[in-house]
């Protein structure tokens, strides 16, 4: 009865076929949900919200004076991925992260990909996140991106496309883990029958990854999580992960560098640190090398890194790999480094600094989505089809002024998913998927990822800062 008036429209719907029948892997949850009344569903939903609030599973809203902590809206209707589909994604993501790590090693050393004319040197060197200070620096095990949060979307046919590779310090994994815990509490009897692969290994895998990349082999390397502090919007997540891994969470002023070694200040004096999982941007890491006004960082951290006495995850300078312009070249990287065809598709991208693309972009602004190459979180973006004339003209000016900073893509189609709306009914809302990929001794991907959902009707923006919520993501042992 919940789904009587459900409209699929022209988007790919995760749960229903265009004919309106339930996809097989959704059949069980469909029946479970049908057995609930709206009141019961609403009650479960409120119980979960309340438990998030009382546990303090919140994020900080900047610029809001009184209500500084909000819960990330959670939708009980899970997103479900059948076995075969997930295996395909896993292969594609593994291939992609391998190529990205090889790319980073290459451009910070030999730069073969430039010499062989695959990517123009200017595109790399002008990248805001390219760190020339790191040319020639060796990183342990040749891994640069240890933790990656790749955003995936699905086009109108249901093909998975990579939207962006978050290769700096992707957040959100704590919500993935807490969402699962909440679902188990909300549907305790249904869960064992649902055949869902567990996600709880993530913290252990992450710790193993950190231990693996220690600069000098040690029995028990000291790993810490470096946070900007408790005012940061993701502070809950930092605490959550540190607690799960049983490692210290440190701020910049807890650390000090002496003799090219990093120490933390404890009640028993200084203790050496081997691996830092940092949740601070490159710019703020070390005021003696990057922004001198950073109070969050540790002066001398880069010296210690160069001396091989500490390692950090992710490495410095990985931002060049998720530059939106460099994104356009990832399929070429896969072919170049791995001699393979890309398994996962990605969104067609026009580069404003390419002469042939430049004119196409300017002629079609009202049909394109324009993105600043170095922004994240849905900022610095023009969505042509819904933008006003004034906004389009504004962006035309931006692009003419600084073509390197812009790319354009055709409007993307995010798939839709039944989502509880208005406390009474399921409607289709757009979703994306962010799997978390760990590169250590081997590449591990936690089954599923964080499904983000744009809760506002018709909206394509899933960011938590702009009206997004999330869902639990189930990867099944079978094809349903």
């Amino acid at each position, binding site marked *: 009865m919940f789904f009587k008036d459900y409209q699929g429209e022209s988007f790919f719907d995760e749960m229903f076929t265009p004919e309106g029948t339930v996809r097989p892997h959704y059949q069980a949850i469909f029946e479970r949900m049908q057995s609930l009344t709206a009141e019961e569903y609403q009650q479960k939903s409120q119980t979960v919200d309340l438990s998030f*609030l*009382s*546990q*303090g599973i919140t994020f900080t809203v900047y610029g809001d004076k009184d209500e500084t902590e909000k819960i990330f809206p959670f939708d009980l209707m899970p997103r479900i991925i059948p076995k075969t589909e997930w295996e395909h994604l896993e292969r594609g993501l593994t291939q992609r992260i391998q190529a990205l790590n090889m790319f980073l090693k290459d451009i910070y050393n030999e730069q073969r990909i430039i010499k062989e004319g695959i990517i123009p040197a200017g595109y790399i060197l002008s990248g805001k996140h390219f760190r020339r200070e790191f040319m020639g620096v060796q990183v342990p095990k040749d891994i640069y991106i240890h933790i990656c949060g790749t955003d995936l979307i699905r086009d109108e046919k249901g093909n998975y496309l990579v939207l962006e590779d978050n290769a700096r310090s992707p957040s959100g994994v704590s919500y993935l883990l807490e969402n699962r815990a909440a679902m188990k509490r909300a549907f305790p009897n249904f869960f064992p029958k649902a055949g869902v692969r567990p996600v709880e290994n993530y913290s252990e895998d992450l710790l193993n990854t950190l231990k693996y990349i220690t600069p000098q082999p040690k029995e028990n390397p000291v790993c810490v999580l470096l946070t900007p*502090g*408790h005012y940061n919007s993701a*502070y*809950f997540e*930092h*605490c*959550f992960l*540190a*607690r799960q891994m049983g490692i*210290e*969470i*440190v*701020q910049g*002023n*807890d650390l*000090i*560098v002496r003799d*090219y070694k990093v120490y*933390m*200040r*404890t*009640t*028993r004096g200084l203790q050496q640190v081997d691996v830092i999982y940092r949740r601070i941007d490159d710019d703020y890491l*070390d*005021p*003696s*090398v990057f922004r*001198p006004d950073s*109070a969050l960082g540790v*002066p*001398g951290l*880069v*010296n210690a890194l*160069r001396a091989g006495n500490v390692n950090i995850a992710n490495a410095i300078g990985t931002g060049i790999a998720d530059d939106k312009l460099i994104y356009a070249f990832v399929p070429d990287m896969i072919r170049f480094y791995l001699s393979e065809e890309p398994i996962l598709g990605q969104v067609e991208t026009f580069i404003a600094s390419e002469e042939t693309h430049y004119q196409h972009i300017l002629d079609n602004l009202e049909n394109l989505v324009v993105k600043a190459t170095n922004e994240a979180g849905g900022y610095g973006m023009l969505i042509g089809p819904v933008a006003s004339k004034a906004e389009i003209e504004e962006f035309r000016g931006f692009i003419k002024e600084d073509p390197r900073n812009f790319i354009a893509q055709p409007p993307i189609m995010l798939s839709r998913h039944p989502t509880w709306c208005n406390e009474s009914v399921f409607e289709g809302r757009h979703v994306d998927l962010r799997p978390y990929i760990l590169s250590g001794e081997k590449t591990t991907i936690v089954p599923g990822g964080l499904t983000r959902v744009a809760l506002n009707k018709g909206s394509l923006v899933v960011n938590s800062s702009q009206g997004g919520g999330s869902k639990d993501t189930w990867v099944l042992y079978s094809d349903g």
Partner: protein
Amino acid sequence: MLSRVADSLYWMSRYIERAENVSRLLDVNLHLLLDFEEMDDLKLKDHWEPVIRATGDEESFYQLYDVADSENVTDFLTFNKKNPDSILSCMMAARENARMIRDQLSTEMWQCLNQAYLFLKSNNAKKVWDSGPYEFYKQIQDYSHLFMGLTDATFSHAEGFYFMQVGKFLERAEKTSQILDVKYHILLPSVEEVGGALDAVQWSAILRSCSAFEAYHRIFVSKVDPLKVAEFLIFNDNFPRSIQFSVREMNKNLHRISGCPMDEYANAAERASGRLLSELKYNTIGDVFNQGLHEYLGSIQDRFNDIGGEVYQSYMFHPHVDMESEIATQQQQQQ
């Protein structure tokens, strides 16, 4: 343990203890008003000023309010965010410290503090208070007791726990001495006047402010005797809110942190607390009155401050790092 973490644990614990003490103090004094007849403004002022003084915030009170009446004082000590010692400020500060070290606490401890925070933040708190302040203050004390119980039952009795105990007992010793000090000072300009009829109610209130009314009567069956009350609150060996008991616990936990044997000391904090404990052990109430109760309490409050400072120096303080020179040094070392 990180020095910053030790600092936060210590302060979190102190703030909760402080909130509990302030709420009990207010609770008792609001109750006490019910026993007086014909309260005029002057009497109200005489009643409330010592209470403000007991929290050490007289100056900031008069910057914010004109008159020391029931409404102003309870607002100042309960909800006013400009007063760092108000119950609201203390609970917020405790929760903020907890949030900074969320990864170190047990889930139960964190959720208890977070519940208290949500309770205070909701309109509910104001409503509860409007409909009955006693219920409200009871709730705050309950949160504090629940938190201590959860800490004891779910948090490893290791270094972090010891820092929390040090903070709690130091705060408790200080608050007991302040509650005793101010009332005595106001009511009894000289020792000889001890025992006036009006005093009985007031001295009972002091005992109640320290949760000590019943414990006192178990030992002293007779009426409330000011000398005995002072003796009980300073020297009683078994009552968990007396000054001596609190100092002994603080001293014990300091030694647990360092691992130093009880009859020796490893740092200035242990030396100061051990010394204070010995004095408390070997002094009598007679010595106290010879010196003057007010003077005596004033001097041990100074000692509490010193001990707090020494704890910070011994465990939490690291030489200040001057960012600019640090950056310059590191830049020189870059090859």
